């Protein structure tokens, strides 16, 4: 029962091996299509046979995902996908288990399961499609919708303070915390690839456009002419540069600050470390356009033993130490006595 990251005889699979017969039923222009495309591109490259993948989701537009991936799939109930996935992963540590969730599914009804999966560090690849709206139920504000948002259920503007998914993930002891956007396809593929190779709970937030109920929510981050100033792609060991390398981030009084590279010199620019202090990762994750460029990429990557690995190691150690349990011995234990014939 050892975890397989790369199969000994890599199986030759292609994108079409991961497509299913089910007709894909998201609205035209939905960001979910782009994400699906990246998954179908990524999976054949991971060196695992198809049966070693499981894709498990909750409820929401995003959670239709498993029906479109030709792997083991489970479309569960609202918010509970991390819990279902946990049971499967504990019993099948050799499988690569993906959890697909939405901002409502993962942070509202399922918030509890999400944070506990992260703190336990169960080896799940959790991908949260954040469209800052309840799509499937037709457009109510979600726990990531901006304060004051007007929707069907908040006609006077919502008075809810939103969650920042990465803050939640970092606060919940997430070891792998990353952000990507549906429109940044190549980058999205790279982030998902890194998540796939991470041993432990990997949390990826994807900014996903819902053209029907929240169109353009991320336009400043994805439209040419705006995104250059509004997005910073972070990379381990590289300085925090954006806007074509002309601007960068430094930290002053523990706070991020935008500077012109020309003025301060490249050496002063903060160099990103995925294994840096949590406070730094939090500060980075919480920079948002338009005040700051929004960070895309792997914010934090620090491995520690995974829950499933440790649970199964305990089982192995017990068996090695005392031998496989014998039912007769179990029943005949404790305080026993014999009644004669």
């Amino acid at each position, binding site marked *: 029962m050892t975890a397989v990251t790369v199969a000994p005889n890599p199986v030759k699979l292609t994108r079409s091996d991961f497509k299913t017969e089910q007709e894909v039923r998201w609205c035209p222009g939905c960001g979910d299509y782009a994400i699906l495309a990246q998954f179908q591109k990524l999976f054949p490259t991971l060196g695992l046979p198809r049966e*070693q993948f499981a894709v498990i989701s909750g409820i929401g537009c995003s959670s239709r995902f498993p*029906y479109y991936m030709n792997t083991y799939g489970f479309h569960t109930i609202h918010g509970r996908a991390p819990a*279902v996935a946990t*049971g*499967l*992963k504990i019993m*099948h540590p050799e499988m690569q288990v993906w959890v697909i969730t939405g901002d409502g599914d993962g942070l509202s009804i399922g918030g509890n399961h999400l944070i506990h999966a992260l703190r336990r560090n169960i080896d799940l690849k959790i991908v949260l499609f954040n469209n800052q709206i309840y799509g499937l139920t037709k457009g109510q504000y979600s726990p990531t919708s901006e304060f004051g948002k007007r929707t069907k259920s908040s006609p006077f503007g919502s008075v809810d303070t939103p969650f920042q998914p990465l803050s939640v993930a970092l606060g919940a002891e997430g070891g792998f915390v990353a952000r990507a956007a549906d429109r940044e396809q190549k980058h999205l593929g790279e982030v998902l690839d890194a998540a796939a190779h991470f041993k432990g709970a990997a949390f990826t937030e994807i900014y996903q456009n819902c053209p029907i109920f929240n169109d353009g929510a991320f336009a400043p981050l994805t439209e040419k002419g705006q995104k250059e100033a509004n997005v910073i792609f972070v990379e381990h060991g590289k300085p925090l540069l954006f806007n074509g390398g002309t601007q960068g981030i430094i930290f002053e009084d523990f706070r991020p600050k935008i500077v012109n590279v020309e003025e301060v010199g490249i050496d002063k620019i903060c160099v990103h470390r995925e294994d840096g202090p949590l406070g730094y990762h939090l500060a980075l994750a919480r920079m948002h356009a338009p005040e700051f460029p929004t960070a895309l990429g792997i914010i934090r990557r620090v491995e520690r033993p995974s829950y499933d690995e440790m*649970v199964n190691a305990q089982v192995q150690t*017990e068996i090695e130490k005392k031998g496989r349990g014998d039912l007769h011995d179990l029943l005949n234990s404790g305080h*026993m006595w014999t009644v004669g014939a």
Partner: protein
Amino acid sequence: MSTDTSSPLGDPGSNGRSVESLETVAIRFAGDSGDGMQLTGTQFTSTTAIVGNDLATLPDYPAEIRAPAGTLAGVSGFQVQFGSSDIYTPGDRPDVLVAMNPAALKANLKDLEPGAMIFVNSDAFDARSCEKVDLPPTVLGDGTLDAFRVFEVQFTTLTRGALEGSDLTTREKDRCKNFLALGLMYYCFSRPLEHTEKWLDQKFAKKPDMAEANKLVLRAGFNYGVTTEAFAVSYKVPPASIAPGVYRQVTGNTATAMGFVAAAQLAKSDLFLGSYPITPASDILHELSKYKRFGVRTFQAEDEIAAVASAIGAAFGGNIAITTTSGPGLALKGEAIGLAIMTELPLVIVDVQRGGPSTGLPTKTEQSDLLQAMYGRNGEAPMPVIAAATPADCFDMAIEAVRIATKYMTPVMLLTDGYIANGAEPWKVPDVASLPDLTVHFRTEVEGFQSYDRNPVTLARPWVRAGTPGLEHRIGGLEKADGSGTVSYDPDNHEHMNRIRAEKVARIAADIPDAEVIGDDHGDVLIVGWGGTYGALRAATALLRRKGHKVSFMHLRHINPMPGNVERMLKSFRTVIAAELNLGQLRHLLRERYLVDVKGLNKIQGQPFKISEIVKKIEAVLETPSQEAVL
């Protein structure tokens, strides 16, 4: 229990040292939560089992972990009934009360019949302690207890005396006084000390001085009985005629845990438990957490929803998956259980019932989750419901639950309750070879695979272990097309699937034994019971029949679907009475299903039935059959 209404302990006036023989005795040990009463009771029980008596026990502990010392809320009790004939309950009313303080006396006095023996720790009856529980400080001498045979014993003084010269602190010495009480009871009921002495040596292997001290006090208690005039009479309870074999004590929760380990082995699969701690179910989680060597994985989840959901994930992986809880937790699991019904995955949910609604009476017993088990889900969501009758029966019912779940690809609800979960009885350890073969046949053949293809007899769909090459498929909570298993919104298919899900459960009726019947298959009154009231109802029925009444008892282990003989039985008696610890839930099911005017015998006090109250009520019904019997 004594079948006679007078005390079984004979005439208090007998002179000279003699040994009298008794058929049954019920002893209740009561004291502060910190007095070690559960331990004392358990030791008395173990020794009693070894000398060959049949027995049943009932621990009764406070809901608060540490209620203030000396208060009624803090009284912890342990009752054991033992005898030379079959014992079905811990006894209605104790024949003997051991009271370590005024609170213990006060809390239990109302349960005693005149003539009962009371052993009090007279050292604890100072004015302040008596006042705390509203007893006059003179209670031991002022005639209040004249109806009883009171033995004032200075437990504390005698304990300290026995430990004179020991290096223990006074506090440590005082903590041994429960062994004084135990030693004295061993004397009074002619039990040997060896078993407890051996147990102390093991328990305190690393602290030999503690073992020694407790042994000294145990012997001092016994010797006090030997030398004290007051105990001129001692009693013996001859061994019961018990089927030969190897026995052990089990509580319902331990038996449940072992039953699932056994079932997984018999299924040649690994066991997964997802659970969230809750009284009185937590001990199943504790037990199973020990059995890593058996390949058991236990997952203490963040809540009951995650607990059941994780079990569903494990079932998808092809494992024997269970989740254990009590009423409030079951309420949280409803939606996920519906998912297991929809995805037709095998899963066992154990509900160790306790007093409800809401937090209710967490440490007390009740049978009020039956309708929740039957119906507590959205949509038409039928599932098999079974219930264990006694602590040892939990073992068999755990296996039965797994058998049904895996054979029919369905979640199964197993109901137990606080009374049998914590109660213990001797259990004849089964031979492993005699247990049923539950080997699961996972689908591995790729050719022609459809995820909702059905076995024509059981209507079960194929079970595929996630990870099996070539059988990748998707399941979920959306309605599926029968056969192919793809998402379907077709109206006819939806009706068809609802009917199939119902039919699948209904067909199990042909695959279960008849309900157990004590007595004739026709007569004046049929008592129908289910779950942990088995012992009391059976014993009451035996008593009524001995008095010549045409009363029979039918016990349901399978509640959904019901066994084949139920209808015939219900229709063969003048009066049918469903006796249960709720306001009439089985009664409701029987009336609805069979259109029989079933009456109710109901009690909802957090306490099990007393045999006497059942007998009284049934006798009243026999006199005026038209009356509603409601306790």
